[in-house]
């Protein structure tokens, strides 16, 4: 069921003139993830314009976006499509319509890692992610290869003023302890 206010909600929230889109397909043509999307970028924009809120927020394609921003820089109407995708991802999680949760889960673990250490602790974050998905052994061969070549740090690096980091995360409403 189309929602009249979806377009204006998106335009107000992002400051991006989504309604300028004239469906030229340039965003989709340059998108390296388009073939993995159920709804390709120019159609997402089209659906926002026609008010298909639920259809957009439940799209699996939102999570295929790699944020390479090829769409944004090529849009003849200056629509920052990649940013629209970012905002839609947040909205899809908040509304409970998200087609998948693993990327959001991983991003949240990364923010928690920053809250804990001030720097990104990759190994810890990846291990926590694999554990939560009960796939600890997935890509272990790659993990061992990386450890052998010291391409993943075994121990975290800690920022001295971690209270400041935690306060930043708390005050901006991000996740973290």
């Amino acid at each position: 069921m189309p929602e009249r206010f979806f377009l204006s909600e998106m335009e107000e929230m992002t400051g991006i003139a989504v309604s300028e889109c004239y469906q030229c397909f340039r965003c989709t043509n340059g998108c390296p993830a388009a073939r993995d999307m159920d709804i390709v970028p120019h159609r997402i924009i089209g659906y926002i314009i026609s008010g298909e809120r639920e259809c957009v927020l439940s799209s699996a394609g939102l999570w295929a976006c790699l944020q390479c921003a090829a769409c944004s820089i090529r849009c003849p109407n200056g629509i920052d499509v990649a940013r629209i995708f970012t905002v839609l991802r947040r909205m899809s999680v908040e509304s409970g319509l998200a087609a998948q949760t693993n990327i959001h889960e991983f991003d949240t673990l990364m923010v928690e890692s920053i809250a804990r250490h001030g720097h990104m602790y990759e190994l810890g974050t990846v291990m926590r992610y694999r554990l939560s998905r009960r796939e600890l052994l997935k890509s272990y061969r790659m993990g061992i290869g990386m450890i052998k070549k010291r391409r993943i740090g075994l121990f975290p690096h800690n920022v001295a003023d971690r209270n400041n980091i935690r306060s930043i995360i708390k005050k901006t409403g991000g996740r973290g302890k």
Partner: protein
Amino acid sequence: MIALSYYPGCSLRSSSDFYDISLKKVMAYYGVALKELDDWSCCGALAALMVNEGLSLALSARNIALAEGSGFHLVAPCSACYARTKTAARKIAEDKETRRMVNDALSPLSCNGNIEVKNIIEVFLEYIGIERIADSVSYDLAPIHAVAYYGCLLTRIMGISPSDDIEDPMGMDIILKALGVTVIPWQYKTECCGASSTITNGDVTAKLSGRLIKAVVRSGAQTIVTTCPLCQLNLDLITYLGEDIQPVPVLFLPEIFELAIFGKISGGARHIVSIRDIEQAIAPVKGHVR
């Protein structure tokens, strides 16, 4: 003596610390002092941006505050750090509401966003200059056939005038030519490598990085040169990602400088795809007196 503030970022402290070592060695050779920000923190890369835009801006603002205190321009070798920090600096400088929000979050630190953020290609071209680069060559790198790979985050920063041509950047090509490398033109300079989907959806990185490597081989080049630590890692990991293709060595730009100036790469053993053939292909420039 030129001095710059230096924001290495998390990758250059862990997975790619040999990039940090290589860059410092080359900058020291040219008399550029890199003054590391005291107690810098993670910019949150794309993860923080995905979770919460205010958080992403405030995390970058912390490093911007540290850099403003130093009074020097800031260099960020990692493309994600560069893109996030540059985006945040502009937004903080231009938008009062953003400035208020980040300073409230940062307190007792504060910033106003008035800082120049540079990537290392800009530093090589603007602070060292192409003539000095060409003059410093002691080893003949012509046997190295390379493509310059910029990745997506270096030039595609919305709302910022890019440091190079967005679709066909040339900065790294120009530097490599000055160093004597045989630079092969190709069409994939800014195509995506798969970014952080390596963990959450490895097949995507395998497909996209695999496509890049196949294009390199088709072009006749034997190596890829990049400045982005995530691109380097993804391309270097290709054999672990399940793609059945012939891998190619992926070098960081400062490592090419090491080859041209010193004849060897300090972090060579850290490459997953062996760089031995590259190191062995070069010889001192004939008649060169140092």
